[in-house]
């Protein structure tokens, strides 16, 4: 029997959050954490969490499992469980709506700030704006982000200043458009980032790289942005 401890909080009835223990029979299989949550939900239907695709594509079930952020649907028990114990908490640093469900508004507000869309006012060609294979390659490792928020909510700088520091996820997306040969707003984008908080609150802690379920490297993208800002300012 796997010992599972789940963070519970219902703001309508609870004065403060608490941990609730469950025993789960995994049948000796190396289940994913999401499967374990589903088993728990069959014991207690009030346990709340987000999920959708259950295969690491939608980014809905970002959770903190035994102290590390990740997607419950693609985290096998063998990777996270130590000593037959699994502790599941919501992503740290964001307001809890209920149990494992967090309010992502602050995270999305930062994403919105980086204008995550192509800016190019020149007349669109009949079919599509073409890129050379080399230019297209520059977007690899950037466009794959699924906005699960595992990285930003593992970042102490984002915990302290979630309203002013864009955070690893938003900055990875900022660089995705700075690096795009079809985008013509590079200078305006950089101007919007050149304050002491948006980019420069990154102190290279690198928790983001450590937790990204897609294996992306926001710290490196932030380094590229910093170099672009530096090149422009000196």
């Amino acid at each position: 029997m796997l010992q599972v401890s789940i963070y519970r909080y219902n703001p309508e009835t609870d004065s403060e959050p608490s941990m609730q223990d469950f025993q789960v029979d995994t049948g000796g299989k190396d289940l994913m954490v999401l499967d374990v949550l589903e088993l728990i939900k069959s014991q207690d239907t009030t346990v709340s969490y987000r999920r959708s695709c259950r295969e690491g594509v939608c980014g809905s079930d970002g959770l903190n499992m035994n102290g590390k952020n990740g997607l419950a649907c693609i985290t096998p028990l063998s990777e996270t469980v130590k000593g037959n114990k699994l502790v599941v908490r919501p992503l740290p640093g964001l307001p809890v709506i209920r149990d494992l469900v967090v309010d992502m508004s602050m995270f999305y507000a930062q994403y919105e700030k980086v204008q995550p869309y192509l800016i190019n006012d020149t007349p669109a060609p009949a079919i599509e704006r073409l890129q050379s294979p080399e230019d297209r390659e520059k977007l690899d490792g950037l466009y794959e982000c699924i906005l699960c928020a595992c990285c930003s909510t593992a970042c102490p700088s984002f915990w302290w200043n979630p309203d002013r520091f864009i955070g690893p996820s938003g900055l990875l997306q900022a660089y995705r458009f700075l690096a795009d040969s079809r985008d013509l707003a590079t200078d305006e984008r950089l101007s919007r980032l050149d304050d002491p908080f948006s980019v420069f609150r990154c102190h290279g802690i690198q928790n983001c790289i450590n937790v990204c379920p897609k294996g992306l490297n926001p710290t490196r993208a932030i380094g590229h942005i910093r170099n672009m800002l530096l090149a422009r300012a000196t």
Partner: protein
Amino acid sequence: MVRSVTSFGRSGVSDWLLQRVSGVILLAYFLCIGSALVGGVDYLSWRDMFEGTGMRVFTLLAILSLAAHAWIGMWAVSTDYMTERLMGKKGNVLRIAFQIACSLVIFVYVIWGVQILWG
């Protein structure tokens, strides 16, 4: 809400660059002092070393670098931890008091350093 009027250069890049450059200057200075100390010093050789204008200017540069480095660092610490988000309204009071205290201490050290060098 934390704004950036109290940051050193008011721009992220300038603070970042200054933090790096002052760090390198401080490293060079402490290596220089360290190598003098390892070679063994007595009062006379120490005094001779600081008689030269070059060493005095280098020391002044190191003091100013330390001042800038310390301000940028302490400012970052105060805007991370002493905020309205973390402490409520008293975070603002504490942060401003802390920043004033830091700037006073840094100012006194700079003046004191100049006095020692050319006094």
